[in-house]
């Protein structure tokens, strides 16, 4: 397998403009001859489909939701970054670029990070033009706030519902194209396989949820924008149905999977209470602007928070990181919280939470100020926990959130399968081993609004293939393979439900491959995952019939892919003998407990190649070069 990142030559500051100049154009008349398939209707998918249709391509968008508005981008709370320097605090494209590279702990490509920073401003322009109601100053200009890992205010927001508003903007643009007849919107479809013809991606196989029928859809290019895979941990901040199937099945068809072990653990989630809980809910990181994180200084102190005097509280982030304090980056804050809890200082059920306390800000600025900034988040917290965060501190704990790994793509967002493009969280790009707060929405929209429309069009210009019809042998073969897989699933008398196996997988993965990892734990987890795979193959219980609506079957197809992906995540974590970003290997830390990177041996992207059922996958490396940002030890103290 050859990994050619297609990086632009020449100075980085002009690289994207230069690449756009070089990409060939297609005449408007010919664009109609091309068909593009988009999988997923989140920020990346909806905006890519809308933009490509607007350019004149025929687009089909497939989503498992009943409406594109339900994609999980809708749940992003905090905001979207853009280097606009509206606050005159010294922000610039250069600074956002450097923060992004540093935030990713020097495991992302410089050129990609620079392009992201460069495009960020145009994203805000576009969203405002679409009618996204961002927060405004009294004078009518856009407001900003600050986010973890940055010292400037560059985050644009719509109260605590930024993702929702951005997604609705993108979906409205999509529906405009649906109305114009340029996008065919196909909902309630699970994409289960990729169709390739002569090594080129030419379509997908999907299952229609309502009928159970399998369909083959073909096109001249396929774009996967199907989101992240944090649900491998069972309980994560992802929506319950978020899944890895589209990217995992493409991986099995030859697309390299990059940095699978890089999962961001978000420090501010509502901790789990009952074993029957189905998911974890994130509380926006922006809360840390006004909330102070603390724990009782005395281990095992069971007094309620208000009974613990100031002198007996340990504001551990402020103590350990005087410069960033409560705004220390996500991986750092998560690790410190876990450590304190393991040492017996934690509060709540099982001692697995820390306090996030707003009482100082409420005293200083009043309840109304907090209410206007975070009202909906506070209401959400109270609804879930039954406790009033205006009166007592929130209890929070880290949880799996955003996945930095994903399918490998080059600078043009094309995977190792020609004609297969991967966008947003489904790819691995830009964030490195970690990501800055408020930069995921930026990546989704950059990929969908600006990058893919240019590069997909450029690629199609040189590849005017003949149409592949749905009765092509490649389509028939893929459908037959998926049908055989469904027929072979489970028995009616098995002893394990999908949910129970998924919960076990989650326990294994969070323990061995969560906030902290070590070699022995990772090896033991591999054995546990193999056992779960066996239980899945032999003792899964699924209801009949396999035709027609069957939500348990949908779960099983997703879980089978998660089980395989979990094995790859553990292998990747074991192979990366260093600590970086969200990947913390206990064997590699400094005397004061900070992550120790190994730039001599691991300054690269690890891209895994599928080699067949039951075979060891092959690890390939794409070396990273830093010319503009100097790899430094991340120091937030």
């Amino acid at each position, binding site marked *: 397998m050859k990994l050619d990142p297609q990086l632009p030559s020449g100075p980085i500051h002009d690289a994207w403009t230069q690449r756009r100049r070089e990409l060939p154009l297609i005449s408007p008349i010919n664009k109609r001859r091309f068909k593009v398939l988009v999988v997923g209707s989140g920020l990346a998918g909806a905006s890519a489909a809308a933009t490509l249709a607007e350019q004149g391509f025929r687009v089909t968008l497939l989503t498992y939701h009943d409406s594109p508005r339900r994609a999980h981008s809708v749940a992003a709370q905090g905001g979207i970054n853009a280097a606009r320097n509206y606050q005159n605090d010294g922000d610039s494209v250069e600074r956002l670029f450097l923060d992004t590279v540093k935030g990713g702990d020097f495991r992302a490509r410089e050129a990609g990070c620079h392009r992201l920073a460069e495009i960020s401003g145009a994203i805000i322009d576009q969203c405002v033009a679409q*009618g996204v109601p961002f927060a405004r100053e009294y004078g009518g200009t856009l407001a900003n706030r600050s986010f973890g890992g940055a010292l400037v205010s560059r985050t644009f927001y719509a109260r605590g519902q930024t993702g929702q508003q951005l997604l609705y903007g993108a979906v409205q643009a999509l529906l405009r194209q649906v109305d114009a007849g340029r996008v065919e919107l196909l909902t309630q479809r699970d994409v289960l396989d990729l169709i390739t013809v002569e090594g080129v991606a030419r379509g997908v196989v999907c299952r229609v949820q309502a009928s159970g029928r399998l369909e083959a859809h073909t096109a001249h290019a396929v774009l996967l924008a199907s989101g992240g895979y944090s649900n491998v941990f069972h309980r994560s901040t992802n929506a319950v149905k978020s899944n890895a199937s589209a990217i995992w099945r493409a991986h099995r068809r030859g697309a390299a999977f990059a940095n699978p072990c890089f999962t961001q653990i978000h420090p501010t989630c509502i901790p789990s209470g009952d074993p029957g809980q189905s998911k974890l809910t994130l509380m926006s990181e922006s809360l840390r602007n006004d909330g102070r994180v603390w724990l009782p200084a005395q281990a095992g102190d069971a007094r309620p928070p208000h009974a613990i005097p100031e002198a007996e509280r340990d504001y551990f982030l402020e103590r350990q990181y005087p410069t960033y304090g409560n705004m220390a980056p996500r991986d750092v804050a998560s690790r410190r919280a876990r450590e304190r809890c393991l040492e017996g200082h934690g509060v709540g059920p099982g001692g697995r939470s820390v306090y996030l306390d707003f009482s100082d800000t409420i005293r200083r600025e009043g309840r109304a100020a907090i209410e206007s900034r975070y009202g909906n988040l506070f209401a959400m917290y109270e609804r879930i926990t039954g406790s009033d965060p205006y009166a007592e501190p929130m209890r929070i704990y880290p949880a799996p959130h955003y996945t930095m790994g994903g399918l490998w793509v080059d600078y043009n967002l094309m995977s190792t399968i020609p004609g297969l493009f991967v966008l947003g969280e489904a790819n691995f790009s830009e964030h490195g081993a970690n990501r800055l707060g408020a930069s995921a929405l930026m990546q989704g929209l950059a990929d969908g609004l600006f990058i893919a429309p240019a590069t997909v069009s450029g690629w199609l210009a040189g590849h005017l293939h003949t149409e592949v019809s749905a009765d092509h042998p490649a389509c028939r073969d893929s459908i037959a393979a998926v049908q055989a897989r469904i027929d072979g699933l489970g028995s009616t008398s098995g002893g394990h439900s999908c949910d129970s196996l998924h919960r076990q997988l989650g326990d294994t993965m969070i323990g061995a491959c969560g906030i902290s990892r070590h070699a022995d734990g990772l090896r033991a987890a591999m054995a546990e995952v193999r056992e779960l795979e066996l239980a899945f193959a032999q003792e899964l219980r699924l*209801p009949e019939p396999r035709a027609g609506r069957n939500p348990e079957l949908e779960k099983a197809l997703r879980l089978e892919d998660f089980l395989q992906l979990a094995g790859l995540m553990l292998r990747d974590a074991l192979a990366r003998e260093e600590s970086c970003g969200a990947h913390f290997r206990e064997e590699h830390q400094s005397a004061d407990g900070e992550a120790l990177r190994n730039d001599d041996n691991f300054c690269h992207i690890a891209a895994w190649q599928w080699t067949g059922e039951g075979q060891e996958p092959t690890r390939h490396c794409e070396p990273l070069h830093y010319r503009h940002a100097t790899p430094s030890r991340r120091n937030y103290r």
Partner: protein
Amino acid sequence: MSSASLRLTLRIWRQESPRQPGAFVSYPLEELSPDLSLLEALDRLNEQLLMAGERPVSFDHDCREGICGACGFMVNGQAHGPQRATSVCQLYLRHFRDGNKLTLEPWRARAFPLQQDLSVDRSAFDRVLAAGGYVSVNTGSAPAANALLVGREQAEQAFAAASCIGCGACVAACPNASASLFVAAKLGHLALLPQGQPERQRRSAALQSAMAAEGFGSCSNQLECAAVCPKEISADWISRMNRSG
């Protein structure tokens, strides 16, 4: 968090497909933690049904944090249940008493055909929006964002209307199965922003006629829609829609 445990009986509408007849079936559940959500209690019921060889209950859900709008059914005759401003995924068992009996049934509206059990097809909403619920702007040619000044109060109001999650509770609660609140919220959001002005009249006419064509009823000022809206969208938006045509 509480350590108490609850017994509840869920009386659920079961209907395998639109073509087959449906009926209520009662399921007792024991030892439920009050910290579970109602959907998590349904998960638990489904696990039991699966193990007993029965078909699990279909219900729509996804984010389970009250924002995707996928969930929704009637709980004791109320859309999303008794808790104000709450989608059903955020309805926790601590709001019920030991021994309570809950009747769960799907949204009922001609424009929302039933799929299975508690799950209905709400794609009519997207077809209504596609008729013009957007600002017609092509990608890549937008003017500088701060060239369009929007007063803070106005932006807040537009945001309030834009926060509709499209769950369909307003339709289910309305005796006429009207989609007026949904449509008025979208019109209100875009009409309050300078970006939305050029197409304002056309948008309003197009959305209202699409709403009628999908089989939604007319508004007769019952205000049930606003009472059940999980995002507390005000019925004032409907008056605004009617005034501005």
